[in-house]
């Protein structure tokens, strides 16, 4: 127990927590979108993220930025990140879409009970993870550091690096884009209509299957973007990378109120920060224990999460 350490380094722990939390939040959006519309926990979402991390290494290697490559210029860094976001977003979105088509849509057509969807989700998750394990021989893949952390400024005694700033801002930007899309656009209107009442939405001419495809692609693309941020931050990936991130992101979604976009953001950031404090107090090995204890405690008092469940809400 080391409360003094946490108090002394509160600001620094907060910054690292927010950085980690931004990645949780982006992944959490995928859980929350799918749950909001289908009332289904898409456990295969963690593997959608994993596919993104590998796609990033592949596209970087293809662009000449493999292991041992020299650090590129600033413009090169931006180009590599953009290429990775596009490629990983597309690959993850496509993976999510395939999961929907193969694992969920046939069940939906047969009106399967929710439990069957859950089994199918877990099956899809394990199948994807093990397939990636087989292909990569269960060897982790490293990549050269793209961004060397450089302190930009200090706030309350915490050094903030360009890397941390970049990750937090990219995540916020993606979130704002998604939130605006859902709340302002025509397609977003359809998504909200289906989330609020699928039967009536269909009777008002909303194509439910298309809305479902859309949310899987959107959620997948968000996970793809998160996977790029993860790669930039960690520089290492493996076939099972999605598991813990996926569980944490799912926790973040539930913490904020699953089905609620703002909840996913709040839950992700909060989880990142709290687990960092926890790690500071009890030591790093206790980080995940703290994260999940927080979930249990919050749900005891707010069973619907901090902001409540609802994708349909205008403030979703």
């Amino acid at each position, binding site marked *: 127990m080391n409360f003094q350490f946490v108090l002394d380094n509160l600001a620094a722990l907060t910054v690292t927590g927010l950085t980690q939390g931004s990645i949780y939040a982006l992944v959490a959006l995928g859980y929350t979108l799918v749950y909001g519309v289908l009332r289904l926990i898409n456990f295969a979402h963690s593997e959608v993220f994993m596919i993104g991390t590998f796609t990033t290494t592949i596209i970087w290697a293809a662009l000449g930025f493999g292991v041992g490559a020299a650090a590129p210029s600033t413009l090169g860094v931006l180009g590599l990140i953009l290429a990775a976001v596009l490629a990983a977003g597309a690959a993850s979105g496509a993976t999510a879409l395939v999961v929907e088509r193969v694992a969920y849509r046939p069940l939906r057509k047969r009106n399967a009970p929710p439990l069957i969807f859950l089994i199918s989700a877990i099956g899809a998750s394990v199948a994807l993870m093990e397939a990636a394990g087989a292909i990569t021989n269960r060897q982790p893949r490293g990549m050269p550091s793209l961004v060397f952390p450089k302190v930009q400024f200090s706030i309350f005694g915490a050094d903030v690096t360009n890397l941390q700033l970049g990750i937090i801002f990219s995540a916020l930007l993606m979130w704002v884009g998604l939130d605006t899309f859902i709340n302002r656009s025509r397609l977003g209107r359809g998504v909200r209509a289906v989330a609020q009442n699928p039967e*009536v939405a269909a009777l008002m001419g909303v194509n439910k299957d298309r809305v479902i495809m859309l949310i899987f692609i959107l959620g997948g693309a968000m996970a793809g973007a998160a996977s790029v941020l993860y790669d930039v931050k960690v520089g290492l990936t493996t076939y099972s990378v999605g598991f813990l991130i996926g569980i944490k992101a799912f926790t973040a979604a539930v913490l904020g109120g699953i089905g609620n976009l703002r909840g996913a953001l709040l839950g992700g950031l909060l989880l990142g920060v709290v687990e960092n404090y926890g790690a500071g107090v009890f030591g790093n090995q206790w980080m995940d224990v703290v994260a999940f204890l927080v979930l249990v405690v919050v749900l005891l008092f707010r069973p619907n999460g901090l902001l409540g469940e609802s994708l349909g809400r205008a403030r979703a």
Partner: protein
Amino acid sequence: MLEVDNVTIRFGGVVALDGVDFVVREGEILGLIGPNGAGKTTCFNAITGVAKPTKGAIRFNGESVAGRKRYKITRLGIARTFQNIRLFPEMTALENVLVGADARHKTSVVGALLRVYRVPVKRHELAEVTATGGLARLAQQARRTGQRFFGLSRHTLEERAARAKATELLRLVGIDVRAGELARNLSYGEQRRLEIARALATEPGLLCLDEPAAGFNPAEKEELLALIRKIRDTGVTVLLIEHDMRLVMGVTDRIVVMEFGKKIAEGTPAEVRENPKVIAAYLGVPADAA
């Protein structure tokens, strides 16, 4: 316009509709009446694709409805309201209507993203320059110039048209001042009217109203009557389920009477009123008391 051809629907062992047969003619207001449990709402459900006929066919302008996806039936031109109000509670009144209007959008998902389909703009459609100075004015001018050269995307124009149409419909049903309010905050009567506006936004040929006057006081019922007539006069055919006999008699051109899942009578209000079967089965009292 709509043919309900010998339709039977069974739910397990229960026969909800038993060989029901009637047509809705273009431009009329047809009343569908009958005691509780007669199968009126089931009939609506069959027409809008919610319930599947066990036997028989439903044709709309010659096209079979059964087996089609619900959203496609809506796009064929059949819209409905619900006996128990079913709005999108967390959307504004305007957005509720827009969801209906979206059924008529032509721009695809990809089209809306890329917006390469441009339409030349008329002068009054250009972005307005309202800022008096500084960067804001420059940005607005740039936008206006851009639109003059590249036109507007069809998506933007459709979105604008949808908003205009939705506002117009809200005005038609008399709740345009509440456009920005969340649907769940509207009063009961406003919610009923909003349902009608949302259904009309899908540009139906046939509008199915399921007890639109339920819970209305006499003055509100009068307004509703006027509204239904107004809707018919815009060229929409109306199929109306209603319990209030006075309302049905007052507004419909013809009436179909159902009991226990069967059609027992059909005709003008006057004919139906005189029909002994109807008097016995539905009214249970002398006809003139209705």
